[in-house]
Structures are given as C-alpha cells and as structure tokens.
C-alpha cells in the first residue's frame, strides 16, 4: 500500500481502568494542560515526533464496553503503560485481572511501565511538578497556589494529614511497593527474567496529570527505552524494504494484515 503518512516507527499503548487519568496524562504531556475530559470511546491515536522518530500513542478506553478492542490496540506494541489511580485499590487490581492479558499481542520485548496517577490527591510533593530537566512545570489551568509543599522524608506513603494545597488529602490506597510487586508478577506472567529486565525503579511511576508531576519523566523515559526497538526495526526495514513495517513486529509471528499493527 503506498503511503504518504508518517509511518509510526513504534507504538506505545496506555491501558488502565476508566477514570484513572490516561487521557489526562497524555493531554498534559502533549498539550501541557489539564482540562476536563470525557470518558474515551474506543481508542484515540496520536503521533508524537520524538527527535527523528515518529512514535504512535494509543490512548484506550478503560470501560468494559471496549474490553475486546484492547488486544487490537496492543498488537505489536513496543511499550505499554499500565495506569492506575493511587486512591483506588481496585484500579490496580483491574490491571492484573482485565488488562494484562490484552498485552499478549504486544511485542515479545515490549516494555511495561506501571503508573499510579492522581498522586496530587495523596502526596504534597506531587504538587511540585517535576520535569525532565528538574524545572517546575508550567501549571496551566491548574488553579492551586504554588506554595512550598512540605518536604517529606523518603517515606513512600504520605503522612496522615499533610497540610495540603488543595485541601483534603485522600487516603493513598496503593503504595509504590504494591506497584513494584505487580511489576514483578507481570515479568513472571511474561516469563521474563527479573535480572535481565528493566528494574522496577525505572518503570514504576507516580504521576499527576493535574499538576504535571512526573508526567514528562514518564513519557520521555518510555520514549528513550523504546529507541533500541526503533533502531532495530529501521535496520530490519533497510535489509528488506519491501516487508511491511508491521510484519516484523508481530510478537507471535502473526500474519499481519496490510495496514494494521
């Protein structure tokens, strides 16, 4: 099929229960804004220019109604961002129960990130956005006053009742340790060796789409991590330029249909 479209070099998929903030995270990253969202229908496709590469990002719907589409969106994915809401234990459980199996169609060397969003609700430190260069993020459309948050110790869970910027802090239902443990179980599910895989510290994030906390770090870490996959693919493509790009990606040597991945 002839195509003038900027063929995406690599695919990244956002998965997770409805309402955890997938769309908000992507919107924060792409548009530098936090604004009201509508629950996603199906999936939404975005193309992100990352240096010389085109990265396609699928923001999927978390609603059960669209469950079966997940494996299609995941086909040939180089990275999957499994998203939960730190104030909602069930949203972490759903990742294992409902979303993990969808990633069966992803690349065999797919990279998994576990992301606990809405950290602003539980952690005062999430009110100071952390961007990749350490500079505070421009908090567009985020009304909170920028007062100095309480400096916390290295404690992963928030103090009982911190003086919050937005008022009441919610109970943090999912700790960083819970996410790390889930990461371990995912590696086991995938039959991957923990030692040869990426360490949990590198791929378990806590973010806030609302304040921008850790959002750039998340996406940019993922982009950097999939670079090898892009390079390999480009290389393979040079060797056999007639082969459809997507073909070489199929994890289970699936017969890729023309024009889909």
């Amino acid at each position, binding site marked *: 099929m002839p195509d003038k479209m900027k063929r995406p070099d690599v695919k990244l998929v956002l998965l997770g229960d*409805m309402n955890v903030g997938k769309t908000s995270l992507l*919107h924060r990253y792409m548009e530098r804004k936090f604004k009201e969202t*509508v629950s996603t229908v199906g999936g939404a*496709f975005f193309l992100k220019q990352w240096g010389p590469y085109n990265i396609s990002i699928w923001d999927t719907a978390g609603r059960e109604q669209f469950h079966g*589409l997940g494996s299609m969106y995941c086909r040939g994915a180089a990275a999957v961002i499994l998203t939960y809401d730190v104030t909602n234990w069930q949203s972490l459980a759903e990742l294992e129960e409902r979303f993990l199996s969808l990633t069966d169609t992803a690349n065999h060397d797919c990279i998994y990130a576990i992301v606990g969003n809405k950290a602003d609700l539980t952690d005062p430190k999430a009110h100071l956005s952390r961007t990749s260069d350490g500079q505070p993020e421009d908090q567009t459309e985020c009304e909170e006053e920028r007062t100095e948050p309480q400096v916390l110790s290295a404690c992963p869970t928030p103090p009982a009742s911190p003086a919050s910027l937005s008022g009441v802090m919610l109970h943090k239902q999912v700790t960083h340790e819970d996410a790390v443990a889930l990461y371990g179980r995912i590696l086991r599910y995938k039959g991957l060796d923990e030692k040869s895989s990426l360490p949990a510290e590198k791929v378990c994030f806590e973010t806030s789409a609302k304040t921008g906390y850790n959002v750039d770090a998340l996406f940019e870490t993922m982009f950097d991590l999939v670079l090898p996959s892009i390079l390999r693919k480009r290389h393979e493509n040079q060797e056999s330029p007639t082969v459809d790009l997507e073909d070489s990606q199929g994890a289970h040597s699936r017969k890729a249909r023309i024009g889909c991945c």
Partner: protein
Amino acid sequence: MERANHQEGEAQGVRICDPPSESNPPADTLATSLSLLGNHMFPDPVERLGSTTVSRDDPANSSDVTAEEPSVDAEPPSNQLMKLETEDTETSESQPVVSAQPADRGTEDAAADNDQNDSGEFVVAMLAKAKLEEQGIGVKGRSSPLLEAGTQESPTFTSHRDEDVTADSWRQHRKHVFVLSEAGKPIYSRYGSEEALSSTMGVMMALVSFVQSSDNIIRSVYSEEHTVVFLQKGPLVLVCVSSSRQSEQQLRGELMYVYYQIISMLTQASISRIFEHKKNYDLRRLLAGSEKILDGLLNLVDSDPSFLLAAVHCLPLASSLRDSLSQILQKAITPNLVFSILIAKNQLLTIVQEKTVIEDTRLEPADVHLLLNLIGASSAFQAGEIWTPICLPLFNPDCYFYAYISYLDPPDCTVCLLLLSTDKEAFYAVAECKRKIEEAMETQNSLSLIAKAQSYSVSQVGVSDLRHFMYKPFDVPDNYRQLTQFTSPEMEAPYGSEEEKMRLLDLYRYMHSRIHSTSRPLKLIYHVAERETLLAWVTSKFELYTCFSPLVTKACAITAITKLLRWIKKEEDRLFIRYPPKYSTTPNPSKSSRGGKSDQQDSTDNGFLSLL
C-alpha cells in the same frame, strides 16, 4: 406550551379536579413527587378507577382552539377563531387516565375490565409506597419537575403558563428519563444517580411487570401536569416522566432514541445475550462512562428539531462546493469503507455511501443523529484520531461498524470527518484515507470555503411576517432517497434566547403532535397563539411548519407559504444534499448488508461478554 385563547376554559377544567395541592406537604424527592403525581392522577383512587377509564390522545390538547380545513384555499370564516374543536371536550374535566391498551387509543374504552382497575389501584399503591421508601433520599439536591411544576403552576395555573418556561430549573427538569432492566435493576437516570432513585425505579418496574403479567402492556399514565410513558424493548424498560406537554407518541419516540443510543454502544444481540445469561445483570457496568452520551442525546432531543422530524439538517452550501467535497470523499477509499461523512458545525456537509450499501438501503436519520451525538460527546480531546466500534441500530442492530473520527481543522475543531468501516482492523488504512482527504481539501482550499458556509436567515426568503419555518420534503425526486432531510433557518429574534427558542420548539412539537395524532391526524392546522401564529401543513410531498407574527391574516399566511415554497424550490440545490455520489469498496459485494449476518459486518461483542 401556549394555550393562548382558552386559558379560562382550561383553568376551570383544572380547578374541577385539581387536587388540594397546597395541602400536599413539600416533597423533595422524585418518589414523593411521584406520589404527588399519584394524588394528581387519582384524587379518589377507588372511585375514579372503578369508573370507566377513558383512553384518549392527549389531555393537554383538550380544549385547544385551532382552525382546520381541508385545503389552503378554503375561505376561513374568521382569522382567529375557525372552529372550536369539541372533540375532546367531553373529557376536558381532566380526569386522570391510565391508558393501558396497546392499541385503540383515542377511543372510549368501555371495557374497563378488572385488569385495568387492578392496575390502576396498583399504581396508586406503588406510588404511595415509593413515597414511604424514599423519604429523605435527595435527588442530587434538585427537586423534581413534578414538584416544581406542581408548586409553580398550581397557584398561577390559569394564565401565563409560558412565563414559567423561562425558569432554568423548569427547563432542565421538565423531563425525567429512566432506564431499568426487566429485573428492575436501575441502568440510567437523567437526573440524580440511579442508586438514589432505585426504589422509584423499583416501583416503576413493579408497575410494568404487574401490567405485563395481566397481559396488558402499560403504555402511559396521565395527570393534567405530567405524562408518564413506558417503553419496553427486549430486556430493557424505559420510562419518561414529562411535564413538557408532548404527546405520548413523541415521548415514546424520544425513549426510542435513548434505546437506540444504548444499542449503538452495545448492540441488541449483546444485550439479549447478557440478560439471557444473567437476568439480574447490572448493565451499568458496561454503560459506565456513557452517561454523558445519553445526557447529551436527551439535551439534543429537547433542543434540536431534527429528532422531532426524524430528518437530518445539512449546512447550506453552494452545490458546486458540496459536489467537490463529495468527490474528494469519493476518491479516498479503502476496502470495507462504507460511509464517508463530512460534518461542519454539527451539521452534515455531505455523505458518500458504498454502492452496494446504498442499493439495498439508505442511512436512517436516527442513525445519523446517534453518530452526531457520539461525536459531540467524545470530542473533548480533539487532537487525536478516534477509532471506535459503533452500531447503527436502524441499519443493523446486531453488528458493529468501526468509526474513524478526526477533526480536519485543529485547533478549532468544527470540521469533522467520520469514516465508517466494517473492518475492525482497518484503522491505518482508513487513517490513510483521511490524509488523502486532507491533502485534496488543502489544494482546493475547501476549509476556508466551508468556514464561510453558514445557516441562513429567514429574511433571505423575503416574506414579511414569516419568522421561522421547518420544511421537510418527502422522497419526491429520487435523489432525496438516500436520507430524509429538512431545512430550517436560524432561530432569530424574537426567538434568540434559549427560553424563547424552547418555547417555539414547544409550539412546533404541539403542532406536530396534532398533525400526527393517531386518533385524528390533521393535514393543516392554523394555530393562533398569543405571541405568534403558526401554520402546519402536511401533503404527500412535504411537511411544513411555519411561524408568523401574531397579526398575520390567514390570507397573508397562505400567500407567504406559497412564496416560501417557491423560494425553497429555487434554493434546494443549496439547502439539501441532492446528488450523493457513491463508491465501491467491497471486494465481494454481498447484497445482504442489512439485517442478515453479513460476512463483512462485525457481530462480535468486543470481548466484554467474556467479562460477565
């Protein structure tokens, strides 16, 4: 709804049977309001229901003054008072009515048998029970339309009903809509959470199942303020509680749209399978997140006459521009693409269909309405390209299409491309079509031309006294066959404000209900209201609703309509999509794209059934 010339008569009618509403304790839940409704309906339940129950068309219209005549050129005896309709006067004491007959509405129902009496008493009992069960459960802090209407209107009932229309709360809550499963599980409520209302829903459910069990389908319950309409579709029960004075038929049509929107998300086959599998399944699990789509639909139903007319509204466009857009769509194709639709400002620009599809069938307006609503409700993050399954219930209620939705003019996001494919996996191929379309539109400078297109002003028609109209042609020339359309100018002063717009729409709805009355359909209605005069006319070729300034004479109105029809004829290439092109994308065209399980269409369930 305005009842300009007969306030007195109606007021009297009301006083006769208006319950001592002042003595009703203030109620702040839907259930208590419902029981208030019960009081309204059955001030003296046993006696009333023991007597003959009259099923009639619309009690709201009982003593309306309208002028009717068989043809336009008949000489009216007077400009304003043509003929006092006496059809309904025998029932104008506003006796509450439970219409429990599936058919034969509008006829006196002498067979007020035991079933009906029982069901009537049952209504009262259940509504009273609702009151007990739901005291103290708030409805998201809002009072119900039943209550509002009751308290607002009872004291000043005699006049200026329309004044109350301006109240925001009135407009917002004048129509409640509930969806429940056959097992009585709440699925959706327009206002208030379904949980808070669950016992009300339970009551309605009990009501429905009771009447079902006695082989009667309960269809509607009237009081003089409210109409409660029930609709059962498969395992779903839909209920509308309205004070909008619309006809039962219209309200039922609106419930159908709600049903279709649910089907468009889940398919009819899936819903049946779910409930076969598990009778008391909580469908909210699957519809969670879709409430905004249903809310949006109901707001559109109230504010957009497309739904009332069951026709689509396209943006007026020079036919040369529309043709060139159609050709662009026609050229950007890929296998299994079946519909290409271009939308600007929420109105159709053009629509191109696959050949074999268009041969068997045409796209139903209702399906287009659902698509437009979906786009409106999913456009929050407009930079992306959306790929989502959607069922077009009138086309085929059991299969999914895959919709590609993308805006062509970010960041404005007013021009939207919608491509429908039968292939779940076709996203990249379909996205490629979009790039081709984008490219072609750029070379032809289409976007800036589209940006200039706008709806027209009624002043362009050049007929003084004509304030607004809605014109819906039937399939006269073959070219219209693809899609029922209507044309209508912008609503301008004096209908500029939201309140006045709504008031005009209500007048149109009233005219529409008279024209389409099942018991006594009319061909022509000349309705003199207080602030305007309306004329509705239906022929074998078109359906027309016009609104004139109040002082227009009948003769003037008729001349005006003749001029208007001439103007529409002259402009029809611009006002309607007239020559829809087709393309052929099906590798092995099958004639059975509709209804039958076509091999092209996806009848799977998107995998959610595995989660049951």
